[in-house]
């Protein structure tokens, strides 16, 4: 077995599973799930085999698709450190989620379709990660968008799910326009679509002489617009919290290893290019920091567990981009990897809780006693701690790396540093707020439950009284991901080696201190406000009602969009519709009616003898010809 064949197995098996399951076994759920799981295992084994036997330098296995002029479009797989790590993570997380879905979706009438879409998702993501060609990158980038659209809107009977799916699709599409322009510009600048070739052009230190710096900035900016859409950065972040309308495993998949990771991966993929665009990198850094902070404030006050996790995803994606745009491929990439594990873990825990007690509201969950689900709760604590950056869990190492990269000086970097510290503090605060609300419910506290109507899971007739069940099919992936969330942090050196970077930044205790301190500070505040016995269980923001409202209303960004974009567009559409139906159609109808009436009048004066007409026509032609012949 050579590498190309293994890579082919890795990429193609989800596709085969998707086609077979969707076409052949959509209604025979067990078989569909079996097929998809088999393909997931095959992909994982192949990806793991590739990762373990990886070559130090990049390899590309391609075959020609078609040729336009001098440009040949090659399809294939590109194997280097970045793709191999990401491929393995994608395969592993997807498999965990697929197994988890066996139980979570067990009663859903459409689960054959669900599993088929999961396979489609996995295929798109793997092909995107491994793609060796810009065109392929773009195609699968869009396919990722499509499959997430399908999965978010999986419960298409629910209007909110449909709206969320549409929102996700349209918001990311805005970014995709930028991405597409960027890719075209990139192609124009470099004259090639080959990813490795592009990497080589931008590889040398200093900017490539052939391309003017302004153009590089523009390309990077355009690519970054795509990333903003896909990875839910400000100002296009609003789709991600809504995307939890899909089944929870889908959220887990979207938020960890696939959809949003694609944007980060794109930056990592073209990191050489981004390094040559310093101005854009500063913009990115600013936006990412702002996003991280913004989303963290939203997460502080949210009551819906999945929403907290969604905001934290946005915030953590901001962290990754901070790492990448501060110039360290390793920091951002490392955080992408670790985040995939603990975020998937947290979502699976959330899913288990929701499955167990039938509500999304953390306060209600806690009061329903879900903390008795031991394995899930352990997973929650580990995942939350990893998210908060408590040593020695995965999140700590990667976040420490990111904080460590911010070593620039000047006002800009000072502001950024303060923002990042604040975001890290808030991260620790809200993640432990979540943990405490669930594990230490306090009936006398000021915490108010939302209306229980939020219950999201389909079969949500669970009463709060009895012990919620923890099926092993759900526990298995949770345990696996818990181990991942604990262990992946120690693999930093290996990952750096695979990325071709010397483990330059070996943190000393002194360097670790700020990160740890900030995290512990956040935890302590959370403990004081939510954890300790008799806590008020209302955050410090509650003392400033306007701020609280601001955070709860998500900084009014959605409202702002609604006012500025959606309403005018709807108004304009209505105007168009009115013009169309009243004015144009009316006119056309009148015209048509006139024609019909004229036709009717003519027909009434018509004797209906076709042959007479033909004869008359022929005779007149004959006379005409005769006349012409005589001329």
């Amino acid at each position, binding site marked *: 077995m050579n590498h190309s064949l293994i890579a082919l197995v890795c990429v193609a098996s989800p596709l085969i599973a998707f086609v077979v399951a969707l076409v052949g076994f959509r209604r025979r759920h067990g078989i569909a799930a079996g097929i998809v799981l088999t393909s997931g295992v095959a992909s994982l084994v192949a990806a793991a085999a590739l990762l373990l036997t990886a070559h130090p330098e990049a390899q590309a296995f391609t075959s020609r698709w078609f040729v336009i002029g001098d440009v040949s479009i090659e399809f294939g797989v590109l194997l280097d450190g970045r793709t191999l790590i990401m491929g393995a993570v994608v395969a592993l997380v997807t498999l965990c989620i697929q197994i988890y879905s066996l139980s979570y979706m067990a009663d859903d009438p459409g689960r054959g379709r669900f599993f088929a879409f999961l396979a489609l998702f996995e295929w798109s993501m793997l092909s995107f990660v491994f793609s060796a060609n810009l065109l392929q990158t773009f195609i699968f980038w869009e396919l990722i968008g499509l499959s997430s659209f399908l999965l978010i809107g999986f419960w298409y009977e629910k209007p909110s799910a449909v709206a969320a799916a549409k929102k996700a699709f349209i918001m990311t599409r805005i970014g995709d326009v930028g991405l597409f322009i960027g890719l075209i510009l990139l192609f124009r600048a470099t004259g090639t679509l080959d990813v490795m070739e592009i990497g080589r052009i931008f590889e040398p230190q200093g900017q490539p002489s052939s391309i003017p710096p302004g153009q590089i900035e523009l390309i990077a900016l355009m690519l970054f617009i795509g990333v903003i859409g896909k990875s839910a950065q400000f100002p296009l972040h609003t789709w991600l919290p809504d995307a939890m309308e899909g089944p929870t495993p889908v959220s887990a998949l979207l938020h960890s290893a696939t959809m949003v990771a694609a944007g980060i991966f794109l930056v990592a993929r073209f990191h050489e290019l981004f390094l040559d665009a310093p101005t854009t990198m500063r913009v990115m850094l600013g936006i990412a920091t702002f996003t991280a902070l913004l989303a963290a404030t939203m997460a502080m006050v949210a009551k819906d567990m999945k929403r907290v996790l969604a905001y934290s995803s946005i915030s953590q994606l901001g962290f990754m981009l901070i790492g990448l745009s501060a110039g360290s491929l390793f920091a951002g990439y490392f955080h992408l990897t670790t985040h995939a594990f603990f975020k998937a873990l947290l979502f699976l825990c959330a899913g288990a809780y929701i499955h167990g007690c039938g509500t999304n509201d953390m306060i209600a969950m806690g009061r329903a006693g879900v903390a008795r689900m031991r394995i899930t709760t352990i997973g929650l604590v580990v995942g939350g701690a990893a998210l908060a950056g408590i040593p020695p869990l995965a999140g700590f190492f990667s976040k420490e790396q990111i904080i460590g990269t911010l070593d620039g000086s000047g006002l800009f970097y000072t502001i950024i540093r303060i923002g990042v510290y604040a975001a890290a503090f808030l991260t620790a605060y809200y993640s432990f707020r979540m943990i405490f609300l669930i594990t230490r419910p306090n009936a006398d506290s000021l915490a108010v439950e939302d209306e229980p109507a939020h219950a999201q899971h389909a079969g949500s007739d669970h009463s709060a009284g009895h012990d919620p069940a923890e099926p092993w099919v759900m526990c298995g992936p949770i345990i696996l991901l818990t181990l991942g969330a604990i262990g992946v942090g120690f693999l930093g050196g290996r990952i750096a080696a695979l990325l071709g970077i010397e483990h330059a930044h070996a943190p000393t205790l002194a360097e670790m201190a700020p990160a740890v301190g900030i995290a512990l500070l956040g935890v302590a505040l959370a403990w004081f406000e939510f954890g300790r016995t008799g806590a008020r269980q209302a955050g410090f923001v509650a003392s400033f009602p306007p701020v609280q409202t601001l955070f709860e209303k998500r900084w009014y960004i959605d409202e702002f969009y609604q006012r500025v974009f959606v309403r005018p567009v709807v108004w304009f559409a209505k105007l168009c519709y009115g013009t169309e139906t009243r004015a144009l159609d009316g006119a056309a109808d009148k015209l048509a009616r006139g024609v019909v009436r004229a036709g*009717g009048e003519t*027909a009434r004066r018509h004797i*209906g*003898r*076709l*042959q007479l007409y*033909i*004869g008359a026509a*022929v005779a007149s032609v004959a006379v005409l010809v005769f006349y012409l012949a005589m001329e």
Partner: protein
Amino acid sequence: MTIQAWMMFALVLFCIGLYGVLARRNLIGILIGIELMLNAASVNVLAVNYHVANDPAVGRIIVLFIIGLAAAEAAIALSIILAVYRQRTSIDVANLEELKG
């Protein structure tokens, strides 16, 4: 045979078909006339093809297309005739005058 002879022959055939189209009251009779006219056109094309054209493949291909189109036309026409017959139990054009308006 000169080209004129062939063309006159085609013309005569065409006019016979024309007479059929104009005179017959039976729909199938009219269809027969149409087929004769189409064949006259084919003969004409092939005569020109034989005597004048530089590339003799073209004329034959045109005739093949004419034949194919005639087949399509006949199929449609006959199905219409059947439908008309089922409606009116007659295929006399005189009865079809109410098609007007």
